Structures are given as C-alpha cells and as structure tokens.
C-alpha cells in the first residue's frame, strides 16, 4: 500500500537540502553584488578613489562566485534530474545567478568611473538628489528581490515591478536634467557624462532585480511573466529632428 503522499509532502529530503544549499549560495552572491552596488555608488558619489579601488578588487571574487553557482546548478540538474518545482527552482537559479552577477558588475562600473573629489554636487544639487534617490530605491529593490528569493515570497517579488516603473521615471528625469545641465554648465560635461552613466546603471540594476523577482515567481508558481504581467504593447519611439518632420521607430 502506498503511503498518502499528502501526509508526507514537505518531509526534508536530500533534494530539499540540496535546493536549500543552492539558494543559500545564490543569496550569498546576491549580498556580495548588493555590497558592490552600494560601495560602488558611495565611492563615485564621494569621489573616493580608495573605496572605488576596493570595489574593483572584488571583481574576481564575483566572477568566481558566479561560476561556482552555475556549476552547482548544472550539477544539480545533471545528477538529480529534477522535475516540477525542483526543476523550476534549479532553472530559475541558473538565470538568477546571471542577473545577480550583472548587478555586481554594474556596481563595478560605477566604481570604475569614479574621479577624485565631489566636484559639481553643489551646482547640480537637484540632479545629485535624484541620483541619491535612485540609489535608495534600487538598493531596496535588490534587497527585496533577495528576500523574495530566500523567503519564497511571491507577493514581495511582484511588488518589484511597481518599483521598477518608478525607477524608469527617475531615469527619464535624470536624463532630462543632465541634458539641461549640459546646456547651462558645459564646463561640467565630464561629470555630467558620468552621471548619465550612473543613472543608466541604476536603471539596469533595477531591471535585474525585477528579473530575479520574475524567476522567483516562476520557480514557486510555474507562472511566466506574460501570464501575470502582460508586456506593454509595442510603442514606437519617435525621434525628434530639428524640423520635427522625420520620425522613425526602434524597439
């Protein structure tokens, strides 16, 4: 007589321990990447070259953690041939690893464009305030994505998409401010070019946090993004020309 499977579901098994172990490794990678984002921004914002170098020195370890995580996920797939939630979790972790690695890389990129001193913050106070706000929201999103992953929290993961919309708006505002500032303070072009990159990096980090949330939802429910969050209909971007006559679209 077969036992009632409902009565034994959830009993810890080798599989569960292995998956827990995989998740813990992903969380460590995520914490490492988050610290690189945090410290990369701080170094850039404060013009602290020593702090920036410290972030740059972590790149090799980030790579190693990414590779180790990928290896562990593939080994789990090959050796355990998982199905259902176990399969989805292993597949999701493979993708999540890539997104976490990218976040760390973007922290690295912020450190890389750090220059000595905090020149320009007074003149560009509004822009500086906006970038600080982006940092706060984006770091919160990364933290939230890790909490959703580690705590199996679908709703927490879903909240990320709303925050991402806010980051996108801030990114557009930052771009506008930078263009205006370039006209007003052409002498600050180097600094503004870096700010443009940082705003873009924050926007990308937020996108990667959303991807972590998306994969977490897939692992836990089997739902793919298009099943709960229909993609925006294609909207052609209209490029303005001096005469505002010619338009073209891109994806």
């Amino acid at each position: 007589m077969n036992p009632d499977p409902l009565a034994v579901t959830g009993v810890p098994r080798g599989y569960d321990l292995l998956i827990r172990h995989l998740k813990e490794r992903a969380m460590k990678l995520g914490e490492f990447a988050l610290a690189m984002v945090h410290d990369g921004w701080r170094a850039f914002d404060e013009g602290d070259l020593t702090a920036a170098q410290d972030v740059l020195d972590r790149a090799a370890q980030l790579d190693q953690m990414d590779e180790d995580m990928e290896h562990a996920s593939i080994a789990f797939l090959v050796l355990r041939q998982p199905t259902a939630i176990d399969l989805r979790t292993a597949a999701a972790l493979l993708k999540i690893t890539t997104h976490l690695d990218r976040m760390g890389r973007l922290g690295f990129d912020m450190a890389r464009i750090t220059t000595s001193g905090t020149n320009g913050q007074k003149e560009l106070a509004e822009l500086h305030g906006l970038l600080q706000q982006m940092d706060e929201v984006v770091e919160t999103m990364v933290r939230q994505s890790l909490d959703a992953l580690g705590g199996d929290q679908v709703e927490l993961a879903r909240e990320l998409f709303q925050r991402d919309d806010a980051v996108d708006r801030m990114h557009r505002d930052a771009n506008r401010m930078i263009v205006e500032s370039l006209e007003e303070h052409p002498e600050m072009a180097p600094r503004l070019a870096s700010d443009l990159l940082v705003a873009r990096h924050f926007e990308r980090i937020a996108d990667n946090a959303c991807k972590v949330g998306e994969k977490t939802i897939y692992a836990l429910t089997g739902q793919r993004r298009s099943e709960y969050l229909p993609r925006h209909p294609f909207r052609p971007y209209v490029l303005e020309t001096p005469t505002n006559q010619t338009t073209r679209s891109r994806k």
Partner: protein
Amino acid sequence: MAPVKLVVDHLTAYYGAKPAISDISLQFPDRKVTAIIGPSGCGKSTLIRCLNRLHETQSNAHVEGQVILDNEDIYALDPVRVRRRIGMVFQKPNPFVTMSIYDNVSAAMRFNGHHSRDETDKAVIRSLQQAALWDEVKDRVDSPATSLSGGQQQRLCIARALAANPEVLLMDEPCSALDPIATSKIEELVGQLKNDYTVIIVTHNMQQAARVADFTAFLYLGKLIEFGATEDLFERPQQTLTESYITGRFG
C-alpha cells in the same frame, strides 16, 4: 491537439469485485506517444491491458465503461480483430523461442490468413526496418530468435507486432529488462514509430516518459490524477499528487 485515436470513457476494470482502476476517462491523440506513469500497483498495466481486451482474458476480470477506437467501441467488436488493430509489446521480450527471426515476424501474417511468399518477405523486411532491426539481422533472418540479444529480441517483438499492421501500439514497460544501450535504441525507435502509429507506453521510469512521450497520464491508486502535455506535466503539474510523485516526495 492532435486528432484523437482512442477514447477511454468512464472505464473501471475489476479483478473479482475489486476495481483495479476506477472511472478513468482519457483521450489518446493519434500518432503521438502517450506515457502512463505511476507507482507500482496504481493500475498502469491494467489500463493498458483494457485497451486491447487482454484484461478480460484473466479469470474473474471484467470491465465497465467504454474504449472507443475511431468511433467503434472495442468491447462490441471481436477481440481478435481488436488485437490486430491494437498491438502490444510486453515487459520482457517474448519471441517464439522455437522459431527463426523470419518466422517470428511472419507469424502474425500466417495467423491472419494466407499471403504469398513475396508479400510475406516484403512485410517481414518492412517490419524489421520499422523496428530498427533489419540492418543487424538481414544476413541471418533464418537464425533462431533466441540467438539475438535482449534488446534485439525486444525489437523483434516490436517488429512482430508491426507485421500485423496495427493502428495503435501498446508497450508495457518495454525497456525494464534492457540495458541503457538497448533502452536508448527502443526509445529512439518509439520516436520514429509515432510517425505511423499511435503509441501508448507504460513506464516506471519518469525520465523515459519525459524523453519519449508527447503526452503523459499519471495514475495513482487506480485513478487518473492528471493528463497533459509531457512538458507541462513535468515542469508545472497542476495536481499536488502529481507534484509529490514526480519530485519523489512520496514517503
């Protein structure tokens, strides 16, 4: 969804007064491979044996419900005619041990009426080719069937079943007595056979079901728990029982 070849409608099969499978309704798509999985004693073999009226050949066994092959209830037809249209391959290779390879394959034709030697030769070659055995035995078709390896004997049994020109091929754990090399040949063969036949395969091996089947049915304690596209069933099953079984969370 492919057109339906075989419909099982509220089928219950008994041994004495005890039902081995209860109220199963299921549709087998034409020219697709459908796997039936489930733990020992769940009724997989009983179900498949109801599909060509083998179940009723056991004492005290009977069925209720219908099995409809192309709009005809097979329980209203001559059972011999049914078995001509729905062939079967068993767990252990069971060639006619006193016969040659050629005679094993041509046996079905002889039982089904007179055919010229030329017709028989052509049918034997075609069947052995379809069973992916011809190249290995073409120089020794008069050798005893027992001179073949286990895997070759199983393919000989498949050739023998195909020689009767069936429309549906039932396979009851056809690889359970075979080594991995012979197993992979049979699995590859199943993939080819579905071009011409509707294949229904009972297997204990979930990875095998995932590899060979387009659709999978999960049985538990004589009930059909879930039926669907194999990819969906193994990636995101809809029923907790299915999830518990395929992830190994039974006991």
